[in-house]
């Protein structure tokens, strides 16, 4: 059950450096422009150095920025393991949108831990939730740059947000480096078309 205190609660998870903050900024700024109150929480500092990161974005909320357990309407995961790690934040009727491109942590590259099979992660998530899973990094590469992966996923989640697509697209154009606008607009549209 999502909280009564907010219209739409979004959790964005990923790895430090993947662009989770830009993704939440595009959404947060757009929501403010559509006259919503917004509360967001971000990971900065030590955990950012290649660690697991999670942002909360609450649209239409004027209280705290932290989404209660099983309160999120959507979990947007920039990395597969980071989808499963934060699944407790998602409401039973919430939707997972996830990138299937794995980023191996140092614990895996040095052989101290195993990285699970990505298909089995998706299957595990599907046992309890609606899951939209695709390789957003490849889509971004098709659009022109692998780094636009975060914007592909913003495009995908735009189908669920209570925000107009144009408002989001305008923010994308405004907030990415000027030279990469075309790539990012394409990335957004490719992501948006991934949801039936």
């Amino acid at each position, binding site marked *: *059950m999502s*909280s*009564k*205190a907010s219209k739409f609660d979004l959790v964005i998870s990923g*790895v*430090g450096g993947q662009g989770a903050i830009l993704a*939440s*900024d595009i959404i*947060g*700024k757009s929501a*403010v422009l559509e006259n*919503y*109150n*917004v*509360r*967001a*929480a*971000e*990971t*900065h*500092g*030590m*955990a*950012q*150095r*290649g*660690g*697991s990161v999670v942002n909360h974005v609450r649209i239409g909320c*004027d*209280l*705290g*920025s*932290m989404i*209660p*357990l*099983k*309160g999120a309407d959507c979990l947007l995961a920039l990395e597969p*393991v*980071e989808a*499963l*790690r934060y*699944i*407790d934040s998602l409401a*039973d009727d919430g939707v997972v949108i996830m990138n299937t491109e794995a980023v*191996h*942590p*140092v*614990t*895996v*590259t*040095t*052989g101290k*831990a*195993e*990285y*699970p099979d990505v298909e*089995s*992660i998706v299957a*595990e998530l599907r046992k309890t939730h609606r899951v939209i899973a695709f390789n957003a990094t490849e889509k971004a590469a098709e659009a022109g740059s*692998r780094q636009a992966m975060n914007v592909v996923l913003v495009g995908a989640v735009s189908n669920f947000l209570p925000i107009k697509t144009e408002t989001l697209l305008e923010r994308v154009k405004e907030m990415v480096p000027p030279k990469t606008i075309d790539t990012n607009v394409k990335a957004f549209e490719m992501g948006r078309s991934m949801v039936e």
Partner: protein
Amino acid sequence: MNTREYMLGNVAIARGIVEGGGRVISGYPGTPSSEIVDTLSKMKERDFYVEWSVNEKVAMEVATGAAMTGVRSVVTMKHVGLNVAADPLMTLSYMGVKGGMVVIVADDPGCHSSQNEQDTRKYSEFSLMPCLDPSTPQEAKDMIPYAFELSEKFELPVIFRPTTRISHGKADIELGEITEHRVQAKFEKDTSRWVMVPSNAVVRHPHLLSIQDGIREELEISPWNELTIKEDSKIGVIAAGIASVYAKEAIENLGVSASYLKIGAYPVPEGLIKKMYEQVDTVLVIEELEPIVEDRCKIIAKDMESSVKIIGKTDGTVPRVGELNVDHCVKALADVFEIESGLPEIKEIEMELPPRPPAMCAGCSHRATYYAMKKVFGKNAVFPSDIGCYTLGIQNGTVDTTLCMGASIPVASGIYHSGEKQPICCSIGDSTFFHTGMNGLLNAVYNKANITVAILDNRITAMTGHQPNPGMGLTSTGEVTKEINLEQLCHGLGAEFVEVVDSFDVKATIEAFKRAKDYEGTSVIISKQPCIIYARRTGVRLTPFKVDHDKCVGCRMCVNLGCPAIEFDKETKKSTINTTCTGCGLCAEVCKFDAIKEVQK
């Protein structure tokens, strides 16, 4: 016109400083406080002075000097920084100020990026300075101009205490007017005010106590406290700072009726608390970290001979450690109301997930220095370390101790003087050395500690977001200034063995560490190489490396460096280098089979 902007809490606080007419702003970086001075430093048009000081004590004293002249000043730091600045703080409360002074101390409940989770409100009680505790980023911005006014009214600095969720939260912020606070700085001589010799201090202490009632009365009617009485309920909730919004959401979600007092300023509003006691027979106190409001509530109840029951941390209903959230509040409220919490059941994830701790970046020069250090000193040596990115060397076995800023060298000295037989090599970053490492080196040389000190000089304060420091030759605003030479500085502190090496020249670094280890006395190695993130941001590009799979035998020497750019394929038993390689070349250096080469263009 829409004046609402989506901002980071710390950016909103910086805006509050501008709106309130702050003239001198100093600070030392520390998560979650750093973006306040960062934001002010980056502003193109400024009618204020802003600096990164070398540590929090110095920053506090700079802001104090400014406030003595009548202008408004601010000092920023993280919670543990206030321990460093506690010496000026405790006498500054006797001395007081002329211009408004705000002491911004950002707390980190849950230790997201800190070595402890101490509660700055305790320093407010201790120093007798009032404290403001925002519940939202908007309130954080709005509190700053108020804090200047309050400080000037009572001629006493005001502590302002955001937490991680305020400083690193984002929200839509309604901007305010910029105050036209134009005061000409003028230091007026007055030894009774500015010279805290015993004869003056004994007069200022009772003065400080005498203004407490006035401060309490002023804060009681401030907009930061808010009381709602529910006549149909015998239960009341008192919640402070950010916990007040969590408590509000929990009350709404449970649909219960309770009188509610939000507290945003200390000393606590005794009148409002007493008013609540007239209505209720049970009070649940919700606050992050220490039971400060809770203890005050108990004292007030005892003084009134009220039979009201006070529930909170002492009885275990509300956690005393870590961050609070809505779920904690729902649970505590359900306990008090004796109803079902309705909290969801959380099932264990059946799949084993690989941990993803923060790690040194691909191409981080600290990895190269640690490799050379470990190679020379061996894994049985003792490696005291310090606070910065290099603390992540905990994964490499070269961080045996981390206590607080600057502790590496004194801890190493203490271990040496205890008679420990293993060699001792400590590590400290450039900014941390300037902060409080220098005194430790002076002490080590003076007291003849036979240790090696490695200064990991990555030419910037990296962990907190790349702030300039005295070694860079740049001020906070990017102005060129005297570049402090670390080598000369170490010599000045008495060290005779000081060698400077390029961190990426592994062979030379190893040779230097060997000489340092053999040296009888305190030896210093300065391992110099810019932070790779900052270097790349300023356009530096090195040629990346790749593995020749015909030559790779799968020995994993390169993999064991723990570089995120190096992966090991379990099927083929070969290493590969991924796209995050920045070209530091350390892996090529350690490969015994000559299998790692620069990518040919």
